[in-house]
């Protein structure tokens, strides 16, 4: 029954999108919407197919994904490590918190020009932007997770002779995984956003710069095609994240219920 219901909802949602596209198609072809702003969806689909079938999309996609992968991995590692230290040690959190709180409210993308000043427009700058932006959700969630670990679990670690470091790594870190994952999920979205923006601002390589470039050179169909590819990438990343979560953290649901 549930399966049928899910499929039904899926079909309903897809039909609505198809209807929208059909209406836009009509509106463009009848001249209600200017082609220069929005070409007919069928034209975009044709261009998209050309880009995909020729393999033209692969190099920029690889470039964007690679950048995101490096930046995201770094920010997760940094965020979890610093979050664990700050969650465990009051002293460390007293030292780092004011600085972090000062940086946190600045919209990170506003700092990209600063990073361009320091690192130029190359990979270093882009990676730095991604790290700067996507590091905070992981950090804050890790701190929250570590501070909220069930005291009984910590006492269990103590009674079996583990010291502070052992408890931090063997008890607090795994117990915080649900929080860390929630932070990582937010970070993934922010990371993709920042990657695209950094690519646009630097104008060198990747999907971001292609979107901007095709808009500037009035290749509107290309622009929309790249946007569709970007949308697909976002979907794919979220799907992969959920899949990995279930695969590697099978205890997640149960844990949150108790």
């Amino acid at each position, binding site marked *: 029954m549930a399966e049928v219901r899910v499929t039904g909802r899926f079909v309903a949602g897809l039909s609505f999108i198809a209807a929208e596209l059909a209406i836009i198609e009509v509106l463009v072809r009848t001249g209600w919407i200017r082609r220069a702003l929005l070409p007919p969806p069928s034209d975009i689909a044709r261009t998209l197919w050309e880009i995909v079938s020729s393999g033209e999309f692969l190099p920029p996609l690889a470039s964007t994904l690679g950048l995101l992968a490096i930046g995201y991995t770094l920010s997760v590692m940094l965020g979890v490590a610093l979050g664990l230290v700050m969650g465990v040690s009051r002293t460390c959190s007293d030292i780092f918190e004011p600085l972090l709180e000062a940086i946190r409210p600045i919209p990170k993308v506003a700092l990209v020009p600063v990073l361009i000043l320091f690192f130029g427009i190359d990979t270093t700058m882009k990676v730095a932007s991604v790290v700067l932006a996507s590091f905070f959700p992981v950090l804050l969630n890790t701190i929250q997770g570590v501070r909220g670990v069930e005291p009984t679990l910590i006492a269990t670690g103590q009674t079996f002779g583990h010291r502070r470091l052992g408890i931090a790594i063997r008890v607090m870190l795994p117990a915080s995984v649900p929080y860390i994952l929630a932070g990582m999920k937010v970070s993934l979205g922010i990371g993709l956003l920042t990657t695209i923006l950094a690519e646009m601002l630097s104008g060198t390589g990747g999907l971001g710069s292609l979107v901007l470039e095709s808009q500037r050179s009035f290749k509107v169909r290309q622009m929309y095609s790249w946007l569709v590819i970007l949308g697909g990438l976002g979907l794919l990343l979220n799907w992969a994240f959920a899949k990995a979560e279930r695969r590697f953290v099978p205890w997640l649901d*149960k844990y949150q219920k*108790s």
Partner: protein
Amino acid sequence: MSAEQRWWLGRNTDASGANVVRLGESGVGMQASRLVAAGKPNDAAGQRRAAGRRAVLLSLRDVNKYYTSAGEAPTTALDTVCLDVYQGELVAIVGPSGGGKSTLLQIAAGLIPPSCGQVLLDGRPISGPPPEVVYLFQQYSKSLFPWRTVTHNVAFALEQSNLRRREVMDRARSYLKRVALEDFGNHYPWQLSGGMQQRVAIARALAAEPRALLMDEPFSAVDALTRLELQTLLLDIWHSNEDLTIVLVTHDVDEAVYLADRIAVLTRNSRQVLQVFENSLPRPRHPIETRESQSFLSLRHTLLSILLRRSNGRS
């Protein structure tokens, strides 16, 4: 002294044997107490234990615990508690909820420091949880690691040792077998029933090979039948390991009388160990027959009388 106490003291004056309650060291200045002789240790294991248990393993010396919060008078959780636990014995601490039993046990395990007083292990004061003492929590669902399988939960107890990984896992499995859960090693704790989860927790505690196992109401969260099974399992484990000392905190008087060699009574009003009763019901004990014996019933009667009177605020 109340009429009730005179009643139970009088009732037992004719009991023969070593009718002396171990209270001397406690120095709590309480009224004279008498042992309630419920039977004689008539089995070999019991006698071996009785003979070998003169060495004090854990000693609580004038342990006080009070909590202070700003602007309020300090709340006393424990008031000058003294208790000696002998090597190899099974002691129960009974008392009502909110009587400070758990606090006492956590202090004994080195998990929380006393406000004043000392805990001695082999005569040496402890400062923090000693590796020889393992604390078993009442809430098994909160003390088992949900991200570890059952075997890995048990293995946690051995990860501080220098054993190789393989050896750790082998031992974990053998302790699982001890609690008859060898077929559930790859399950997660939350896939098991409450009683099974507590067995995992017991296996993990045993795997650390502690000298003393401190159990905080270990069977209070499972159903009545499972409780009987787990009690019998515990006795079984205790009988098979002569050096194992168990201190069990419970509000269940039946459980205390069924399991323990000695029973310390902690009441809500005094926040002290009031009396320690020797329980010489014969071992091995039987889950049904022991509970029907006259000695069982009379000791149960005595303890319940004290607890009910005390918790009513009269003394």
